[in-house]
């Protein structure tokens, strides 16, 4: 059986997302935890309203960017304040190594506030061995907020 070609149905330019990604996006849009959804090519597909509030930018205003660019933009570090190489970003591990990661991370939002959060990154696998992407969930520690 051949793979489904992009836009298999007709001549539109945007290929329809995999059904699991559609469901994940719709679920995320209803949840109050900040959630980022990445595709299998490490492309940022979506983040929800809670994520918009946390990082200070709306999804519609955010340019498409891979995880390492997003991490650099928000100066992502370890809990101890050390630089986090892109290969060690939880979402990158989930995307490339297909395993879940849960670890504390520090970053600075566009409002200048430095935050430490617990980050859970989970790969999304579909039937037939399809690698669909990954999702990152931010768990806020509001009591640790401090202006940098």
């Amino acid at each position, binding site marked *: 059986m051949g793979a*489904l070609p992009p836009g298999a149905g007709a001549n539109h330019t945007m290929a*329809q997302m995999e059904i699991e990604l559609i469901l994940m996006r719709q679920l995320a849009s209803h949840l109050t935890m900040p959630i980022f959804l990445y595709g299998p090519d490490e492309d940022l597909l979506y983040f929800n309203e809670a994520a918009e509030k946390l990082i200070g930018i709306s999804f519609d205003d955010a340019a498409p960017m891979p995880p390492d660019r997003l991490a650099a933009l928000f100066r992502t570090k370890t809990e101890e304040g050390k630089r986090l190489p892109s290969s060690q970003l939880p979402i990158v591990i989930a995307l490339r190594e297909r395993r879940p990661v849960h670890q504390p991370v520090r970053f600075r939002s566009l409002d200048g506030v430095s935050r430490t959060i617990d980050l859970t990154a989970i790969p999304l696998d579909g039937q037939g061995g399809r690698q669909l992407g990954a999702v990152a969930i931010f768990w806020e520690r509001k009591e640790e907020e401090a202006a940098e």
Partner: protein
Amino acid sequence: MKVTLWGTRGSVPSPGPENVRYGGNTACVEVRGADGSLLILDAGSGVRRLGTVIGPEVGRIDILLTHLHMDHILGLGFFAPLYQEGLEVHIWGPPSAGHDLGTRLARYYLSRPLFPVRLRDLPCDLKLHDVERGVFSIPGFEVTADLVLHPGPTVGYRIRENGASLAYLPDHEPALGAREFPGSPEWISGFDLAHGADLLIHDAQYTVAEYSDHVGWGHSAMSHMLAFARAADVARLVTFHHDPAHSDTDIDCFVEEAQAAGLPFPVEAGQEGATYQVGD
């Protein structure tokens, strides 16, 4: 291709004087290719009658199941060609995460105590195929399958023959959880299957009021179906999977409302026995 509806009801067979015109049989659609190839979409109770008119000239039958809910398979055991020794019958359907199609069909229907004849005892030359998302060919047709929003592993199909296309999404809830619907095409379940189709057969189970009590059950409100069809820019729309509680009069009212909405394509209620010529 010539498309004939043998069952347009959803959920459960619903015979009765109030359902005489649109019919009470559950999902079954016959697709005949220009070369005589026979493809059947779903095997609800409507497939029993279809089985009685298939002549000896047919040497192969392909049955494409969208999913294994009972209203889409319950006619299988009563489909006469399955008992015709040596007749080549191919059944295609989605696997689950843990079981292939054959295991699922045997376990959930064609085995005791649910049915007296085991799947493995059928005398026809039966071949079972797991359908994944993608494009494949069967005699006379090119088929595209893709997962769609409905509980459990469920696919929709797009059938092509000589450039003409039929999209079949009988159980589909594309509006589930959507903040706005239909929104951007890339985020619409089933969009690629339906886009630009010459004929779309689509789930039309609920009214808007009924849908609010059935969110997540896997079906569409009429308004969702219309919005989906409009977004997908189909040429013609036929309603399907009518709710068992909807009488002929109810369905007439729903479709008249839809027709009055100024749609850029004709919409009509799926009626048992109706035929459609798709392409030449």
